[in-house]
Protein backbone atom coordinates (compact mmCIF):
# COMPACT_ATOMS: atom_id res chain seq x y z
CA UNK A 1 0.00 0.00 0.00
CA UNK A 2 1.46 3.39 -0.94
CA UNK A 3 1.20 6.31 1.40
CA UNK A 4 -0.41 9.53 0.11
CA UNK A 5 1.77 12.67 0.22
CA UNK A 6 -0.51 14.21 2.84
CA UNK A 7 -0.35 11.17 5.05
CA UNK A 8 3.44 11.09 4.71
CA UNK A 9 3.72 14.75 5.63
CA UNK A 10 1.42 14.25 8.59
CA UNK A 11 3.43 11.25 9.76
CA UNK A 12 6.69 13.10 9.38
CA UNK A 13 5.27 16.02 11.33
CA UNK A 14 4.13 13.74 14.14
CA UNK A 15 7.53 12.08 14.18
CA UNK A 16 9.20 15.48 14.57
CA UNK A 17 6.86 16.30 17.46
CA UNK A 18 7.83 13.06 19.20
CA UNK A 19 11.54 13.90 18.79
CA UNK A 20 10.92 17.32 20.33
CA UNK A 21 8.91 15.74 23.15
CA UNK A 22 11.77 13.34 23.89
CA UNK A 23 14.25 16.22 23.92
CA UNK A 24 11.99 18.19 26.27
CA UNK A 25 11.61 15.22 28.61
CA UNK A 26 15.39 14.79 28.83
CA UNK A 27 16.06 18.46 29.46
CA UNK A 28 13.09 20.00 31.24
CA UNK A 29 11.45 17.40 33.50
CA UNK A 30 14.15 17.83 36.12
CA UNK A 31 14.34 21.62 35.95
CA UNK A 32 13.59 23.26 39.32
CA UNK A 33 10.69 25.46 38.09
CA UNK A 34 8.89 22.38 36.74
CA UNK A 35 9.35 20.45 39.98
CA UNK A 36 8.42 23.41 42.18
CA UNK A 37 5.40 24.68 40.22
CA UNK A 38 4.35 21.29 38.89
CA UNK A 39 4.79 18.92 41.83
CA UNK A 40 5.58 20.61 45.13
CA UNK A 41 3.22 23.55 44.80
CA UNK A 42 0.00 21.57 44.26
CA UNK A 43 1.02 19.15 46.99
CA UNK A 44 1.48 21.90 49.57
CA UNK A 45 -1.63 23.69 48.43
CA UNK A 46 -3.59 20.52 48.85
CA UNK A 47 -2.12 19.81 52.30
CA UNK A 48 -2.94 23.35 53.41
CA UNK A 49 -6.53 22.72 52.36
CA UNK A 50 -6.94 19.19 53.69
CA UNK A 51 -4.96 18.96 56.94
CA UNK A 52 -6.95 19.24 60.14
CA UNK A 53 -10.33 19.31 58.41
CA UNK A 54 -12.98 16.66 58.09
CA UNK A 55 -13.23 16.35 54.34
CA UNK A 56 -14.89 13.31 52.80
CA UNK A 57 -12.72 11.11 50.55
CA UNK A 58 -15.19 11.73 47.70
CA UNK A 59 -14.05 15.36 47.63
CA UNK A 60 -10.44 14.84 48.70
CA UNK A 61 -9.23 12.19 46.26
CA UNK A 62 -10.77 13.49 43.01
CA UNK A 63 -9.64 17.00 43.98
CA UNK A 64 -6.07 15.86 44.51
CA UNK A 65 -5.99 13.85 41.27
CA UNK A 66 -7.48 16.68 39.19
CA UNK A 67 -5.26 19.32 40.74
CA UNK A 68 -2.13 17.23 40.18
CA UNK A 69 -3.14 16.63 36.58
CA UNK A 70 -3.71 20.35 36.11
CA UNK A 71 -0.49 21.58 37.68
CA UNK A 72 1.88 18.95 36.34
CA UNK A 73 0.59 19.01 32.76
CA UNK A 74 0.64 22.78 32.57
CA UNK A 75 4.03 23.25 34.23
CA UNK A 76 6.35 22.02 31.46
CA UNK A 77 5.01 24.11 28.55
CA UNK A 78 5.50 27.58 30.05
CA UNK A 79 9.14 26.86 30.72
CA UNK A 80 10.33 25.49 27.38
CA UNK A 81 10.14 28.40 24.92
CA UNK A 82 11.51 31.14 27.24
CA UNK A 83 14.21 28.74 28.45
CA UNK A 84 15.23 27.97 24.88
CA UNK A 85 15.22 31.64 23.95
CA UNK A 86 17.40 32.35 26.95
CA UNK A 87 19.75 29.45 26.24
CA UNK A 88 20.04 30.54 22.57
CA UNK A 89 18.79 27.21 21.23
CA UNK A 90 15.42 28.43 19.96
CA UNK A 91 16.46 30.04 16.69
CA UNK A 92 18.54 27.01 15.81
CA UNK A 93 15.56 24.73 16.43
CA UNK A 94 13.35 26.86 14.19
CA UNK A 95 15.76 26.44 11.29
CA UNK A 96 15.30 22.65 11.30
CA UNK A 97 12.69 21.09 8.99
CA UNK A 98 9.95 21.43 11.53
CA UNK A 99 6.76 23.47 11.41
CA UNK A 100 5.79 25.68 14.33
CA UNK A 101 2.67 23.57 15.10
CA UNK A 102 4.85 20.43 15.19
CA UNK A 103 7.28 22.12 17.54
CA UNK A 104 4.46 23.22 19.85
CA UNK A 105 2.86 19.79 19.67
CA UNK A 106 6.18 18.37 20.86
CA UNK A 107 6.08 20.74 23.85
CA UNK A 108 2.48 19.71 24.52
CA UNK A 109 3.31 16.00 24.38
CA UNK A 110 6.10 16.53 26.92
CA UNK A 111 3.60 18.18 29.30
CA UNK A 112 1.00 15.49 28.63
CA UNK A 113 3.31 12.58 29.48
CA UNK A 114 4.64 14.36 32.57
CA UNK A 115 1.11 15.15 33.76
CA UNK A 116 -0.28 11.65 33.33
CA UNK A 117 2.76 9.99 34.91
CA UNK A 118 2.76 12.15 38.04
CA UNK A 119 -1.03 12.05 38.40
CA UNK A 120 -1.00 8.30 38.78
CA UNK A 121 0.64 8.84 42.20
CA UNK A 122 -2.35 10.50 43.95
CA UNK A 123 -4.57 7.91 42.35
CA UNK A 124 -2.56 5.17 44.05
CA UNK A 125 -2.50 7.12 47.31
CA UNK A 126 -6.29 7.32 47.17
CA UNK A 127 -6.48 3.61 46.57
CA UNK A 128 -4.13 2.80 49.48
CA UNK A 129 -5.37 5.25 52.11
CA UNK A 130 -9.03 5.67 51.26
CA UNK A 131 -9.76 2.40 49.44
CA UNK A 132 -10.91 4.44 46.47
CA UNK A 133 -12.00 2.15 43.66
CA UNK A 134 -12.39 3.05 39.99
CA UNK A 135 -15.99 2.80 38.88
CA UNK A 136 -15.41 3.84 35.24
CA UNK A 137 -11.79 3.04 34.29
CA UNK A 138 -12.20 3.91 30.62
CA UNK A 139 -13.68 7.31 31.46
CA UNK A 140 -10.79 7.90 33.86
CA UNK A 141 -8.22 6.96 31.19
CA UNK A 142 -9.80 9.26 28.60
CA UNK A 143 -10.17 12.02 31.18
CA UNK A 144 -6.51 11.72 32.18
CA UNK A 145 -5.51 11.92 28.53
CA UNK A 146 -7.85 14.72 27.48
CA UNK A 147 -7.38 16.68 30.69
CA UNK A 148 -3.62 16.44 30.47
CA UNK A 149 -3.71 17.41 26.79
CA UNK A 150 -5.87 20.41 27.55
CA UNK A 151 -3.68 21.65 30.43
CA UNK A 152 -0.49 21.03 28.43
CA UNK A 153 -2.00 23.16 25.63
CA UNK A 154 -2.72 25.85 28.20
CA UNK A 155 0.91 25.63 29.36
CA UNK A 156 2.19 26.12 25.81
CA UNK A 157 -0.22 29.01 25.28
CA UNK A 158 1.16 30.68 28.41
CA UNK A 159 4.70 30.44 27.02
CA UNK A 160 3.85 32.59 23.98
CA UNK A 161 5.01 36.03 25.23
CA UNK A 162 8.23 37.05 23.48
CA UNK A 163 10.38 36.91 26.57
CA UNK A 164 13.52 35.03 27.34
CA UNK A 165 13.02 35.17 31.10
CA UNK A 166 11.43 31.89 32.27
CA UNK A 167 10.56 33.52 35.63
CA UNK A 168 8.25 36.03 33.90
CA UNK A 169 6.30 33.27 32.17
CA UNK A 170 6.15 31.14 35.32
CA UNK A 171 4.71 34.14 37.14
CA UNK A 172 2.11 34.70 34.43
CA UNK A 173 1.26 31.02 34.50
CA UNK A 174 0.77 31.07 38.29
CA UNK A 175 -1.44 34.13 37.88
CA UNK A 176 -3.67 32.31 35.39
CA UNK A 177 -3.66 28.89 37.01
CA UNK A 178 -4.39 29.71 40.64
CA UNK A 179 -7.76 31.43 40.22
CA UNK A 180 -8.94 28.48 38.13
CA UNK A 181 -8.56 26.12 41.11
CA UNK A 182 -11.06 28.05 43.19
CA UNK A 183 -13.80 28.06 40.56
CA UNK A 184 -13.44 24.48 39.38
CA UNK A 185 -15.00 22.46 42.18
CA UNK A 186 -11.65 21.22 43.52
CA UNK A 187 -12.02 22.35 47.10
CA UNK A 188 -15.75 22.90 47.14
CA UNK A 189 -18.01 20.59 45.07
CA UNK A 190 -19.65 22.35 42.13
CA UNK A 191 -23.12 21.75 43.55
CA UNK A 192 -22.18 23.57 46.76
CA UNK A 193 -20.71 26.62 45.04
CA UNK A 194 -22.69 29.89 45.24
CA UNK A 195 -24.71 30.77 42.15
CA UNK A 196 -22.01 33.11 40.76
CA UNK A 197 -19.49 30.29 41.24
CA UNK A 198 -21.61 27.86 39.27
CA UNK A 199 -22.03 30.48 36.52
CA UNK A 200 -18.29 31.02 36.04
CA UNK A 201 -17.20 27.40 36.65
CA UNK A 202 -17.66 26.41 32.97
CA UNK A 203 -15.01 28.91 31.86
CA UNK A 204 -12.38 26.78 33.55
CA UNK A 205 -11.25 23.61 31.75
CA UNK A 206 -10.30 22.19 35.14
CA UNK A 207 -14.00 22.06 36.03
CA UNK A 208 -14.62 19.39 33.38
CA UNK A 209 -11.53 17.34 34.25
CA UNK A 210 -12.30 17.38 37.99
CA UNK A 211 -15.95 16.47 37.38
CA UNK A 212 -14.87 13.52 35.24
CA UNK A 213 -12.43 12.28 37.88
CA UNK A 214 -15.30 12.34 40.36
CA UNK A 215 -17.47 10.41 37.93
CA UNK A 216 -14.73 7.85 37.26
CA UNK A 217 -14.08 7.18 40.94
CA UNK A 218 -17.54 7.54 42.48
CA UNK A 219 -19.98 7.34 39.58
CA UNK A 220 -21.40 10.83 40.23
CA UNK A 221 -20.79 14.10 38.39
CA UNK A 222 -22.26 17.57 38.21
CA UNK A 223 -22.29 17.74 34.41
CA UNK A 224 -23.05 14.80 32.09
CA UNK A 225 -19.74 13.10 31.10
CA UNK A 226 -20.17 13.77 27.34
CA UNK A 227 -20.40 17.49 28.11
CA UNK A 228 -17.23 17.26 30.19
CA UNK A 229 -15.39 15.49 27.36
CA UNK A 230 -16.64 18.04 24.84
CA UNK A 231 -15.53 20.88 27.14
CA UNK A 232 -12.02 19.48 27.44
CA UNK A 233 -11.74 18.79 23.72
CA UNK A 234 -12.94 22.29 22.79
CA UNK A 235 -10.63 23.99 25.27
CA UNK A 236 -7.68 21.89 23.99
CA UNK A 237 -8.38 22.84 20.41
CA UNK A 238 -8.92 26.49 21.28
CA UNK A 239 -5.74 26.72 23.37
CA UNK A 240 -3.71 25.05 20.62
CA UNK A 241 -5.00 27.30 17.83
CA UNK A 242 -4.44 30.46 19.88
CA UNK A 243 -1.00 29.19 20.98
CA UNK A 244 0.12 28.67 17.36
CA UNK A 245 -1.08 32.17 16.41
CA UNK A 246 0.56 33.89 19.37
CA UNK A 247 3.82 31.95 19.05
CA UNK A 248 3.97 32.85 15.37
CA UNK A 249 3.56 36.50 16.26
CA UNK A 250 6.08 36.44 19.11
CA UNK A 251 8.57 34.47 17.04
CA UNK A 252 9.39 37.57 14.99
CA UNK A 253 9.43 39.84 18.04
CA UNK A 254 11.62 37.42 19.96
CA UNK A 255 14.20 37.31 17.18
CA UNK A 256 14.65 41.05 16.81
Amino acid sequence: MTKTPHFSAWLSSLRSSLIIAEKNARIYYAKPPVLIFGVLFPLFLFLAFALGREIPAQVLVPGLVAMTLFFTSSSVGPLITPWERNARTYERLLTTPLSLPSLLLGDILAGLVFGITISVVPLFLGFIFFRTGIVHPLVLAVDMFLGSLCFACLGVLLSSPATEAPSQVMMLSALVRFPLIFISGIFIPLGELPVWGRVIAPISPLTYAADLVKYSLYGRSFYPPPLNFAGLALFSLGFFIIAVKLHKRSLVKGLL
Partner: protein
Amino acid sequence: MKDKAITARSLTKFYGDLLAVDHIDFSIQKGEIFGFLGPNGAGKTTTIRMLTGLLQPDEGEATILGIDIVHSSIMAKRLMGVVPEVCNVYVDLSAWNNLMLMGKLYSVPARERKKRSKELLEKFGLSERKDEKTRRFSRGMKQRLILAMSLVHRPSILFLDEPTSGLDVQSSRMIRQIIAELKREGCTVFLTTHNIQEANLMCDRVAIINQGKIVATDTPEKLKSTIQKTQSVEVVFDNPPSRTDWLKNIPEVDELQQLGDKFRLYTSDTDVVIHRLAEYSKKNNLHFVSLNTLGPSLEDVFVKFTQNAEVPL
Protein backbone atom coordinates in the same frame (compact mmCIF):
# COMPACT_ATOMS: atom_id res chain seq x y z
CA MET B 1 18.42 28.03 -13.02
CA LYS B 2 19.66 24.47 -12.50
CA ASP B 3 23.11 25.57 -11.41
CA LYS B 4 21.78 28.09 -8.91
CA ALA B 5 21.92 27.13 -5.26
CA ILE B 6 20.24 30.26 -3.88
CA THR B 7 18.30 33.01 -5.57
CA ALA B 8 16.78 36.10 -4.03
CA ARG B 9 14.46 38.27 -6.08
CA SER B 10 13.38 41.64 -4.76
CA LEU B 11 13.55 40.32 -1.21
CA THR B 12 12.14 42.87 1.21
CA LYS B 13 11.47 42.97 4.94
CA PHE B 14 9.88 45.64 7.11
CA TYR B 15 9.93 45.76 10.91
CA GLY B 16 7.00 48.08 11.47
CA ASP B 17 7.97 51.24 9.58
CA LEU B 18 11.63 50.30 9.39
CA LEU B 19 12.73 48.96 6.03
CA ALA B 20 15.33 46.39 7.10
CA VAL B 21 15.94 44.76 3.71
CA ASP B 22 15.14 46.74 0.59
CA HIS B 23 14.35 44.76 -2.59
CA ILE B 24 17.62 42.86 -2.80
CA ASP B 25 18.48 40.57 -5.72
CA PHE B 26 21.30 38.07 -6.01
CA SER B 27 21.96 34.50 -7.00
CA ILE B 28 24.58 32.06 -5.81
CA GLN B 29 26.02 29.25 -7.90
CA LYS B 30 26.24 25.70 -6.61
CA GLY B 31 29.54 25.06 -4.85
CA GLU B 32 30.27 28.75 -4.33
CA ILE B 33 31.37 30.38 -1.06
CA PHE B 34 29.42 33.61 -0.97
CA GLY B 35 30.31 36.26 1.58
CA PHE B 36 27.70 38.70 2.82
CA LEU B 37 29.29 41.77 4.35
CA GLY B 38 27.82 44.82 5.94
CA PRO B 39 28.00 47.00 9.01
CA ASN B 40 25.86 46.25 12.08
CA GLY B 41 22.17 46.71 11.35
CA ALA B 42 22.68 46.63 7.58
CA GLY B 43 20.27 43.72 7.09
CA LYS B 44 22.61 40.71 6.98
CA THR B 45 20.91 38.64 9.67
CA THR B 46 17.43 39.54 8.45
CA THR B 47 18.42 38.36 4.97
CA ILE B 48 19.80 35.09 6.29
CA ARG B 49 16.65 34.58 8.37
CA MET B 50 14.49 35.05 5.28
CA LEU B 51 16.64 32.67 3.25
CA THR B 52 16.48 30.02 5.97
CA GLY B 53 12.70 30.25 6.36
CA LEU B 54 12.73 31.82 9.80
CA LEU B 55 11.19 35.11 8.68
CA GLN B 56 8.69 35.60 5.88
CA PRO B 57 9.63 38.31 3.40
CA ASP B 58 7.10 41.10 2.97
CA GLU B 59 7.89 41.24 -0.74
CA GLY B 60 9.89 39.21 -3.20
CA GLU B 61 10.89 35.57 -3.15
CA ALA B 62 13.82 33.30 -2.46
CA THR B 63 14.60 29.80 -3.63
CA ILE B 64 16.90 27.11 -2.28
CA LEU B 65 17.97 24.76 -5.07
CA GLY B 66 14.86 25.84 -6.94
CA ILE B 67 12.52 25.31 -3.98
CA ASP B 68 10.53 28.30 -2.77
CA ILE B 69 11.48 28.90 0.85
CA VAL B 70 8.12 30.44 1.78
CA HIS B 71 5.78 27.94 0.15
CA SER B 72 7.84 24.78 0.66
CA SER B 73 9.89 25.76 3.67
CA ILE B 74 10.13 22.27 5.24
CA MET B 75 11.40 20.77 1.96
CA ALA B 76 13.90 23.61 1.50
CA LYS B 77 15.09 23.40 5.11
CA ARG B 78 16.01 19.75 4.64
CA LEU B 79 18.63 20.82 2.08
CA MET B 80 20.37 23.32 4.28
CA GLY B 81 22.44 23.47 7.41
CA VAL B 82 22.26 26.63 9.49
CA VAL B 83 24.50 28.18 12.12
CA PRO B 84 22.65 31.28 13.37
CA GLU B 85 24.61 34.22 14.75
CA VAL B 86 23.35 33.79 18.28
CA CYS B 87 22.95 30.14 19.06
CA ASN B 88 24.06 27.49 21.45
CA VAL B 89 24.11 23.77 21.93
CA TYR B 90 21.86 22.06 24.50
CA VAL B 91 24.09 22.28 27.55
CA ASP B 92 22.08 19.61 29.39
CA LEU B 93 22.82 17.09 26.66
CA SER B 94 26.12 15.49 25.70
CA ALA B 95 27.85 16.33 22.42
CA TRP B 96 26.73 12.94 21.13
CA ASN B 97 23.08 13.52 22.08
CA ASN B 98 23.13 16.99 20.52
CA LEU B 99 24.25 15.42 17.25
CA MET B 100 21.68 12.63 17.56
CA LEU B 101 18.91 15.17 18.11
CA MET B 102 19.83 17.08 14.96
CA GLY B 103 20.18 13.86 12.97
CA LYS B 104 16.70 12.77 14.04
CA LEU B 105 15.17 16.16 13.21
CA TYR B 106 16.66 15.93 9.72
CA SER B 107 15.40 12.32 9.39
CA VAL B 108 18.87 10.82 8.99
CA PRO B 109 18.54 7.02 9.33
CA ALA B 110 19.89 5.66 12.65
CA ARG B 111 22.94 3.85 11.27
CA GLU B 112 24.01 6.77 9.07
CA ARG B 113 23.33 9.18 11.94
CA LYS B 114 25.72 7.36 14.22
CA LYS B 115 28.39 6.90 11.56
CA ARG B 116 28.23 10.53 10.52
CA SER B 117 28.27 11.78 14.13
CA LYS B 118 31.40 9.75 14.89
CA GLU B 119 33.08 11.18 11.78
CA LEU B 120 32.15 14.74 12.71
CA LEU B 121 33.25 14.41 16.33
CA GLU B 122 36.57 13.10 15.06
CA LYS B 123 36.92 15.88 12.50
CA PHE B 124 36.12 18.62 15.01
CA GLY B 125 38.36 17.19 17.73
CA LEU B 126 35.51 16.43 20.13
CA SER B 127 35.56 12.62 20.21
CA GLU B 128 37.16 12.29 23.61
CA ARG B 129 34.47 14.36 25.30
CA LYS B 130 31.50 13.14 23.30
CA ASP B 131 29.62 11.71 26.30
CA GLU B 132 30.17 14.70 28.52
CA LYS B 133 27.42 17.28 29.00
CA THR B 134 28.36 20.29 26.91
CA ARG B 135 27.81 22.67 29.86
CA ARG B 136 31.53 22.51 30.57
CA PHE B 137 32.67 22.97 26.97
CA SER B 138 34.63 26.11 26.04
CA ARG B 139 33.11 28.65 23.62
CA GLY B 140 35.29 27.34 20.81
CA MET B 141 34.28 23.73 21.47
CA LYS B 142 30.62 24.68 21.51
CA GLN B 143 30.97 26.56 18.22
CA ARG B 144 32.68 23.56 16.65
CA LEU B 145 29.87 21.33 17.88
CA ILE B 146 27.27 23.78 16.51
CA LEU B 147 28.93 23.56 13.11
CA ALA B 148 29.09 19.77 13.37
CA MET B 149 25.36 19.72 14.22
CA SER B 150 24.60 21.64 11.06
CA LEU B 151 26.44 19.05 8.98
CA VAL B 152 24.93 15.79 10.30
CA HIS B 153 22.55 15.53 7.36
CA ARG B 154 25.17 16.43 4.72
CA PRO B 155 23.44 19.64 3.60
CA SER B 156 23.87 20.96 0.06
CA ILE B 157 23.88 24.53 1.35
CA LEU B 158 25.36 25.83 4.57
CA PHE B 159 24.37 29.18 6.08
CA LEU B 160 26.87 30.58 8.54
CA ASP B 161 26.12 33.79 10.40
CA GLU B 162 29.36 35.09 11.89
CA PRO B 163 30.77 31.60 12.50
CA THR B 164 34.15 32.66 13.88
CA SER B 165 33.08 35.74 15.82
CA GLY B 166 34.71 35.83 19.26
CA LEU B 167 36.53 32.53 18.84
CA ASP B 168 40.10 31.65 19.68
CA VAL B 169 42.56 31.46 16.78
CA GLN B 170 42.68 27.67 16.78
CA SER B 171 38.92 27.18 16.60
CA SER B 172 38.57 29.92 13.95
CA ARG B 173 41.27 28.31 11.85
CA MET B 174 39.66 24.88 12.19
CA ILE B 175 36.27 26.26 11.13
CA ARG B 176 37.82 28.01 8.10
CA GLN B 177 39.59 24.79 7.08
CA ILE B 178 36.35 22.86 7.31
CA ILE B 179 34.50 25.44 5.23
CA ALA B 180 37.20 25.11 2.56
CA GLU B 181 36.80 21.31 2.69
CA LEU B 182 33.04 21.65 2.30
CA LYS B 183 33.57 23.70 -0.83
CA ARG B 184 35.80 20.97 -2.25
CA GLU B 185 32.99 18.51 -1.56
CA GLY B 186 30.59 20.71 -3.56
CA CYS B 187 28.71 22.33 -0.70
CA THR B 188 27.50 25.90 -1.23
CA VAL B 189 28.33 28.23 1.66
CA PHE B 190 26.54 31.49 2.47
CA LEU B 191 28.67 33.32 4.98
CA THR B 192 28.15 36.56 6.85
CA THR B 193 31.17 37.90 8.64
CA HIS B 194 32.66 41.03 10.13
CA ASN B 195 36.09 39.65 9.42
CA ILE B 196 36.87 41.14 6.05
CA GLN B 197 40.19 39.35 5.79
CA GLU B 198 38.31 36.08 6.30
CA ALA B 199 35.88 36.97 3.50
CA ASN B 200 38.76 38.01 1.26
CA LEU B 201 40.56 34.69 1.72
CA MET B 202 37.58 32.35 1.65
CA CYS B 203 34.88 33.74 -0.59
CA ASP B 204 34.49 33.28 -4.31
CA ARG B 205 32.21 36.30 -4.38
CA VAL B 206 31.04 38.82 -1.86
CA ALA B 207 28.06 41.11 -1.61
CA ILE B 208 28.14 44.26 0.46
CA ILE B 209 24.88 45.32 2.04
CA ASN B 210 24.30 48.72 3.55
CA GLN B 211 21.07 50.17 4.94
CA GLY B 212 19.15 47.19 3.57
CA LYS B 213 20.44 47.55 0.01
CA ILE B 214 23.09 45.59 -1.81
CA VAL B 215 25.64 48.15 -2.92
CA ALA B 216 28.20 45.84 -4.54
CA THR B 217 28.47 42.19 -5.60
CA ASP B 218 31.53 40.66 -7.22
CA THR B 219 34.69 38.67 -6.61
CA PRO B 220 36.98 40.21 -3.98
CA GLU B 221 39.63 41.02 -6.60
CA LYS B 222 37.21 42.73 -8.97
CA LEU B 223 35.79 44.77 -6.12
CA LYS B 224 39.27 45.84 -5.13
CA SER B 225 40.02 46.89 -8.70
CA THR B 226 37.17 49.41 -8.49
CA ILE B 227 39.31 51.52 -6.14
CA GLN B 228 42.76 51.15 -7.66
CA LYS B 229 43.66 54.70 -6.57
CA THR B 230 44.29 53.58 -3.02
CA GLN B 231 47.62 51.86 -3.59
CA SER B 232 50.22 52.16 -0.88
CA VAL B 233 53.83 51.41 0.03
CA GLU B 234 54.47 49.95 3.46
CA VAL B 235 57.97 50.37 4.84
CA VAL B 236 59.70 49.32 8.08
CA PHE B 237 63.13 50.71 8.97
CA ASP B 238 65.60 49.00 11.31
CA ASN B 239 65.96 52.27 13.18
CA PRO B 240 62.71 54.20 12.89
CA PRO B 241 63.30 57.89 12.10
CA SER B 242 62.23 60.23 14.87
CA ARG B 243 60.94 62.82 12.40
CA THR B 244 58.50 61.79 9.74
CA ASP B 245 58.15 65.15 7.95
CA TRP B 246 60.35 64.01 5.09
CA LEU B 247 58.02 61.04 4.42
CA LYS B 248 55.01 63.28 4.38
CA ASN B 249 56.81 65.74 2.14
CA ILE B 250 57.45 63.29 -0.66
CA PRO B 251 55.40 65.01 -3.40
CA GLU B 252 53.80 61.81 -4.68
CA VAL B 253 52.50 60.76 -1.21
CA ASP B 254 48.83 61.57 -0.71
CA GLU B 255 48.58 60.35 2.86
CA LEU B 256 50.89 58.95 5.53
CA GLN B 257 49.83 56.51 8.25
CA GLN B 258 51.99 55.15 11.06
CA LEU B 259 50.88 51.66 12.13
CA GLY B 260 53.12 50.48 14.96
CA ASP B 261 56.66 50.30 13.51
CA LYS B 262 55.30 50.49 9.94
CA PHE B 263 54.78 53.53 7.75
CA ARG B 264 52.10 53.28 5.09
CA LEU B 265 52.35 55.82 2.28
CA TYR B 266 49.26 56.14 0.10
CA THR B 267 50.09 57.12 -3.46
CA SER B 268 48.99 56.79 -7.04
CA ASP B 269 52.61 56.15 -8.14
CA THR B 270 54.27 53.44 -6.06
CA ASP B 271 57.31 53.22 -8.35
CA VAL B 272 58.42 56.83 -7.76
CA VAL B 273 57.77 56.60 -4.02
CA ILE B 274 59.92 53.44 -3.73
CA HIS B 275 62.78 55.18 -5.58
CA ARG B 276 62.54 58.21 -3.30
CA LEU B 277 62.53 56.02 -0.19
CA ALA B 278 65.61 54.17 -1.44
CA GLU B 279 67.47 57.42 -2.16
CA TYR B 280 66.63 58.93 1.20
CA SER B 281 67.55 55.84 3.22
CA LYS B 282 70.88 55.54 1.44
CA LYS B 283 71.68 59.18 2.13
CA ASN B 284 70.70 58.91 5.82
CA ASN B 285 72.16 55.47 6.41
CA LEU B 286 68.76 53.87 7.14
CA HIS B 287 68.09 50.20 6.39
CA PHE B 288 64.83 48.60 5.31
CA VAL B 289 63.50 45.71 7.39
CA SER B 290 60.70 45.29 4.88
CA LEU B 291 59.23 47.13 1.92
CA ASN B 292 55.88 46.12 0.42
CA THR B 293 53.51 47.56 -2.11
CA LEU B 294 49.87 47.09 -1.18
CA GLY B 295 46.80 47.21 -3.37
CA PRO B 296 43.45 48.27 -1.97
CA SER B 297 42.15 45.79 0.61
CA LEU B 298 38.63 44.43 0.74
CA GLU B 299 38.34 46.52 3.88
CA ASP B 300 38.95 49.64 1.76
CA VAL B 301 36.21 48.46 -0.58
CA PHE B 302 33.92 47.80 2.36
CA VAL B 303 34.54 51.24 3.84
CA LYS B 304 33.99 52.90 0.49
CA PHE B 305 30.68 51.20 -0.16
CA THR B 306 29.32 51.39 3.35
CA GLN B 307 30.22 55.05 3.85
CA ASN B 308 28.10 56.04 0.91
CA ALA B 309 25.29 53.69 -0.01
CA GLU B 310 24.61 55.52 -3.26
CA VAL B 311 28.02 54.84 -4.85
CA PRO B 312 27.33 53.17 -8.20
CA LEU B 313 29.43 50.20 -9.25
